[in-house]
């Protein structure tokens, strides 16, 4: 019933929007534009659709490769005559675009996720330099009869990542998503007759068993990758409300019972971590930690589906077969698997905000999603799972088996000199594994940092 209404409603809106395919979007946008302070914005907002626009898109070159972007650009130029796309694709995108941005030359659209080493996206969030795109959600997907928000998978646009100021306004558009979990070699488990642990107790038992065969239970590429695991465990330990409080730096939350359980689990996992992990957990050598799995030297590694493509050329043990399992639940809690997704956003200072918004709707179209999917990049839209290759479906079906999706990240604050939650919460694991920090100290430090960030919250 509900759905029918929705469908009817959307077709109505759609026909209106279709009639004014280019211009329709603009009228809606101009209201937003006046609100922003960007200087060049207003001038271009009126009749952008009629004019030829060169859309500058800067995207991170990642495991999905560069060709996919060339194909997307081509596909869009084909359907939208007056747009020419100019692509900047770099692995060190931050270093390349930061000077340009400081020079006032902003790309119109950025594909660059939060939680990267350089934190450029976070900087722009903190600096209020990202255009609000709530209206894009109400626009139609380019060339289709459906609104963006209706096509998108539920939950993706009400996280602290997409709505960083916690005010129900969306600033970052969710892009390629990937369930994360613990990756392992399925063949090895079959060969040894081991079961995938469902509780942490089983996990420790397995760890002892594996140790007898000279295999470590756990490794991680660099400590930053623990975010997926820590987030899942926080959800599992305290549920969504608890998670939300933790992400909002609520007082005492990190020394609460729920958090303590998470820290204790991580601490114990540290004892089961492969001895060379910390030595290789740096930007130059992290690949060697991932290799441990392929060589059957470690059993589990937190990662995302991109790792399969990333390690495609690496040699591996006979019969090696990638598989992923969610981290076991903390006592009594549900099992969660953190969903990693990248974000696309429009800098407030961009020249062609409207054209960028229009393009943004295109990336959710079936056509674009198909091109992305062929490269292994999955858009968070309905019906994607069916389009995947069978190997990929295995990962994305993780949520069909009773595992709950976990989404989100820390609330944005004003920057605090010398204080970084990412470093304290994740990178301390290196010290815990090597025995230089106790779990108690770690927990205390995190609460400390949380307090400092709480004071800086707006």
């Amino acid at each position, binding site marked *: 019933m509900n759905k029918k209404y929705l469908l009817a409603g959307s077709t109505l809106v759609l026909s209106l929007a279709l009639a004014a395919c280019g211009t329709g979007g603009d009228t809606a946008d101009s209201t937003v534009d006046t609100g922003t302070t960007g200087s060049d914005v207003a001038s271009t907002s009126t009749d952008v659709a009629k004019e030829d626009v060169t859309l500058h898109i800067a995207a991170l070159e990642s495991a999905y490769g560069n060709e996919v972007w060339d194909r997307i650009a081509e596909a869009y130029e084909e359907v939208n005559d007056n747009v020419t796309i100019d692509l900047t694709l770099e*692995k060190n995108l931050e270093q390349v675009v930061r000077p340009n941005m400081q*020079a006032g030359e902003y790309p119109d659209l950025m594909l660059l996720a939060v939680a990267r*080493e350089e934190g450029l996206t976070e900087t722009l969030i903190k600096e209020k330099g990202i255009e609000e795109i709530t209206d894009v959600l109400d626009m139609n997907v380019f060339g289709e009869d459906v609104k963006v928000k209706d096509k998108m998978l539920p939950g993706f646009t009400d996280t602290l990542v997409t709505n960083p100021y916690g005010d129900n306004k969306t600033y970052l558009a969710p892009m390629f998503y990937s369930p994360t979990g613990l990756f392992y070699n399925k063949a090895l488990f079959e060969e040894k007759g081991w079961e995938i642990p469902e509780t942490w107790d089983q996990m420790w038992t397995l760890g002892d068993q594996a140790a007898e065969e000279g295999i470590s239970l756990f490794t991680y590429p660099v400590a930053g990758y623990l975010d997926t695991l820590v987030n899942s465990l926080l959800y599992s330990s305290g549920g969504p409300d608890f998670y939300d409080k933790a992400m909002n730096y609520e007082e005492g939350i990190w020394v609460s019972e729920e958090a303590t359980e998470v820290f204790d689990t991580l601490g114990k996992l540290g004892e089961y971590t492969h001895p060379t992990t910390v030595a290789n957990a740096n930007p130059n050598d992290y690949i060697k930690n991932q290799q441990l799995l392929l060589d059957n030297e470690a059993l589990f590694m937190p990662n995302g589906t991109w790792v399969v493509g990333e390690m495609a*050329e*690496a040699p591996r043990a006979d019969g090696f077969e990638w598989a992923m399992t969610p981290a076991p639940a903390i006592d009594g809690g549900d099992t969660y698997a953190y969903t990693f997704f990248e974000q696309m956003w429009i800098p407030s200072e961009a020249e062609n905000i409207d054209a960028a918004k229009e393009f943004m709707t295109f990336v959710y179209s079936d056509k674009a999603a198909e091109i992305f999917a062929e490269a292994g990049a999955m858009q968070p839209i309905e019906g994607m799972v069916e389009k995947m290759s069978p190997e990929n479906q295995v990962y994305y079906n993780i949520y069909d088996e009773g595992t709950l999706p976990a989404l989100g990240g820390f609330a944005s604050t004003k920057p605090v000199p010398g204080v970084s939650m990412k470093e304290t919460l994740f990178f301390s694991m290196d010290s815990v594994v090597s025995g230089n920090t106790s779990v108690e100290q770690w927990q205390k430090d995190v609460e400390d940092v949380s307090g400092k960030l709480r004071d800086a919250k707006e």
Partner: protein
Amino acid sequence: MGALQKKTKDTKSVDRLYKIFIYVAMITLAISIIIPVAWVFIASIKQSSEFYGDPWAMPKGFYWKNFIDAFQEAKMGGYLLNSVLVTGMGITMLLALALPAAYVLARFEFPFRKTIRTFVRAGLFINISYIVVPIFLMLLEWDNGLRGMGGAGFFLNNRFILALVYATNALPFTIHLLSSYFETIPFDFEEAAYIDGASLFKTMTSVIIPMARPSIVTVILFNFLSFWNEYILALTLMPGTKKTLPVGLMNLMAAERAATNYGMMYAGMVIVMLPTLILYIIVQKKLTQGMTAGGIKG
């Protein structure tokens, strides 16, 4: 007589032991340098899949495609040209600026000489890493000024400006090195030139500077190395497509979540490394001489 003979024999065998010890130490250090450097060359002809295992394994074959990829896909050829241009211009400007300045600072008495020397010396402590953004913002402002007057941007994305900034940043060290050389030249040369009626400028260009040739070679080599390998300034001041080699190399480096083409990365390293090696081997004889003459006595 016999005792004396025995004694010389003893010293001789101690001597020999001592020599052997020195050779062992020298050879160890030499090996510790040759092996890793050779390793980079060898790695550059490996296929990407060979990089995941033992880094010291021999390559399975000559995989020249790495170099072709580096030139074609990673555009290292174009970057090579930019690097050559920037380095060449930078060194030319540096010499044109530093030689006269070092000369007068070393050999003339004039007001504020000491202050200027201190000022230049203080420049040694300024690090590119923290003045890069202020420089960038300054050039940006100039560019915006030009645009405001209806012109186009000029100062950013300009190889000449980058070379000029390089030259300026190298001035304190170069002036220091050159003037300590000039100080060692006896004053008789200038006196003779003066008596012959040569102008001050003529004296400098045709008498003193030619005498500094070994030092100049040293300056060229030192600065070639630093200009050629520099990437922080190059990355910031050239945000467009005119990248230099080290900046291009940075993009070939391993990055999380991206499949790295290791073969191409090492090929890139070799492309960056080779010109410096060649130049070094050409001028290495002059290097010790240049420093001898300069004395670098501070």
